[in-house]
């Protein structure tokens, strides 16, 4: 494989990412799936990078999942998104940073629609004003939260306590990167590195000392495809998608999987557990799974954040193999203790997946 070929493509897919003054829009589901990620993002930006980031309590769903499930019509979606932009405008910000990939894709789709069809934008402005008396400016810059971490990856390196290096062997840790489909597949030029060889996560892995794995099913869906999981009867397709990817990446012996979408880490994490229970199959060494991380979790680990404050104990595929390889100093006995040392209870140990 020729790395230079990828670099040539990466050079063609550069995007502008604002440097500061971010209006942050949280995800509907990420706080449930990975409860420490969004808090880690805010902490990293505020405390490590000294950036101005506004976390609004007023914003709602972008309607993304309902829109893609044909429950909410596009006109309604656009008006809801117009309200989010109005909240940003009222707060005095111009750089919109959604936490969710579905949202990022949808905001991009709406802005591109308005660019092509200004009369639609005018109509949406009218709808919003009639419904809420609100007005808005369009974002000067729209970047996904992973873009923001990518932009500041060198500053994170400068403050890093740990590297993506195996402390026992001294070799780079090998990471699978998986971007959410709606990050770049719809609008390749809106994603760092484009859609076919995305660089947003690969750039973080490389910057923090790791090595990126390219494997045959890299572009394949994680299993979060809405049609596959919204209808319960279809969930076999979801797990089949994830399994196909695990089987394809297994020979490369990945040390971790890095993601930037709400659904991808959830399904990679959960389905590894489910496959182990269904078939007794695990994809890491010695009955371990392949730890799955969000980009905030990985950045947090690199910066030396406590894994349990990052919420890594709620992962169904244990992350300890990665923590040990990175040489992270953590307290295994505090895994199931809350912030005030209260016992949070412990899940039942899986039958096959190595549990810590």
């Amino acid at each position, binding site marked *: 494989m*020729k790395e230079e070929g990828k670099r040539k493509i990466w050079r063609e897919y550069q995007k502008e990412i604002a440097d500061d003054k971010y209006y942050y829009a949280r995800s509907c589901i990420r706080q449930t799936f990975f409860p420490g990620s969004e808090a880690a993002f805010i902490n990293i930006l505020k405390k490590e990078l000294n950036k101005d980031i506004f976390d609004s309590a007023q914003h709602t769903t972008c309607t993304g999942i309902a829109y893609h499930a044909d429950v909410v019509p596009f006109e309604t979606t656009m008006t809801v998104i117009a309200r989010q932009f109005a909240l940003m405008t009222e707060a005095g910000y111009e750089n919109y940073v959604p936490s969710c990939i579905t949202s990022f894709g949808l905001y991009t789709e709406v802005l591109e629609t308005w660019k092509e069809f200004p009369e639609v934008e005018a109509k949406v402005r009218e709808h919003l004003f009639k419904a809420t008396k609100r007005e808005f400016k369009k974002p000067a810059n729209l970047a996904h939260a992973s873009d923001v971490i990518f932009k500041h990856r060198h500053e994170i390196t400068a403050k890093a306590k740990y590297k993506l290096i195996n402390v026992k062997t001294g070799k780079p840790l090998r990471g699978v990167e998986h971007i959410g489909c709606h990050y770049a597949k719809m609008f390749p030029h809106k994603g760092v590195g*484009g859609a*076919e060889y995305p660089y947003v996560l690969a750039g973080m892995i490389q910057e923090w000392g790791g090595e990126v794995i390219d494997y*045959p099913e*890299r572009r394949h869906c994680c299993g979060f495809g809405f049609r596959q999981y919204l209808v319960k009867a279809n969930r076999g397709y979801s797990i089949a998608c994830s399994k196909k990817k695990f089987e394809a990446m297994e020979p490369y012996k990945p040390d971790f999987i890095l993601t930037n979408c709400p659904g991808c880490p959830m399904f990679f994490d959960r389905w590894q557990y489910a496959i182990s229970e269904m078939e007794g199959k695990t994809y890491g060494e010695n009955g371990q799974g392949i730890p799955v991380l969000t980009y905030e979790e990985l950045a947090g680990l690199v910066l030396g954040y406590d894994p349990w404050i990052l919420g890594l104990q709620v992962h169904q595929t244990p992350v300890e193999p990665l923590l040990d390889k990175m040489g992270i100093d953590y307290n295994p006995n505090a895994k199931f203790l809350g912030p005030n040392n209260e016992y949070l209870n412990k899940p039942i140990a899986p039958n096959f997946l190595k549990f810590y």
Partner: protein
Amino acid sequence: MKKTIIIIGAGIAGMEAATFLGSMEHNVILLEKDQEPGGHLKNWQKLFPTLRYGKEILSFLQEGIKIAKVDLKCNAIINNITKNNNTFIVNYSHQQQEINIEADAILVTTGYDTFDATKKEEYGYGIYDNVITSADLEKIFTTGKPIITAKGDPPKKIGFVHCVGSRDEKVGHVYCSKVCCVTGVKQAIEIKELLPQCDVFCFYMDMRMYGMHFEAMYKKAQEEYGVTFIRGRVSEACENIDGSILIKVEDTLAARPLKMSVDLLVLLIGFVPSEGSKMVGNMLGLQTGVNGFYKTADQHALTNISNVPGVFFAGACTSPKTITNTITDARAAASTIARYLENNPIFQRKLT
């Protein structure tokens, strides 16, 4: 009366038009930017559908310009072209000299470039070691090197992807490049002749076997050589851990998705308007059509005539063409220019 004609580009069209104009006792100057004439023909070992060597055609064309006493200038770089009434002044650099020459007519034969396959990112050309183009394969044929994978093993399975960069809105080329289908058939046969044990698969949308003997060659590839043709566009190519290429495609005749690993993947790249055409077009104010090739005065009847009086076209600078079509077009252009130079009334004809 003897006139001066400058021909820009000494590929097939330029050479053959120069031969015919020279044989009409005109003063013909043939400018070529490369070291040698021949254009893309130099890079092609055997030609469809006869499997004749490309160099035989090249020799034929070279003999023509010699007989017709064409003034061939290789390594000639055009700097500027201006027009004064009906006279063109061409300024070009040649052997460290800057030369100005006046001409009564210009024939543009700037040909085509091959499609840059890295633009079809999903096929991994320039990234995956065992993905090559039809032009790369032809270079292997021409140099006589063995057909081997990046690791040096003889391939057991080779896949050909048709229409790479052609009939593809995603890369902005909606047109058919005309020659790639039959090139795929030709190269598949050549592979089977060199590596009889190798399985060869061609993935196509349509097999456009329009030329005389093309269909017979296509049939021969299937019946005599056992080449497998699968109707479906390859959606993506990935690299397996052993370096082989995993491809995904829908077999649209069987109505089934198909996943297959091949040791070598050959991308049949199409034609794109040449950089030379863009440069000369800018100098002369030549119009281009929707596909970026030069726009001819009429699609049916005035195919050698440009929007600038005294400037003519021949060959693949106006659209993808086979060698046969290019030679015919070059001779037609020569005839058209000859009539233009004598101010023949046939030029007064208009099409509504």
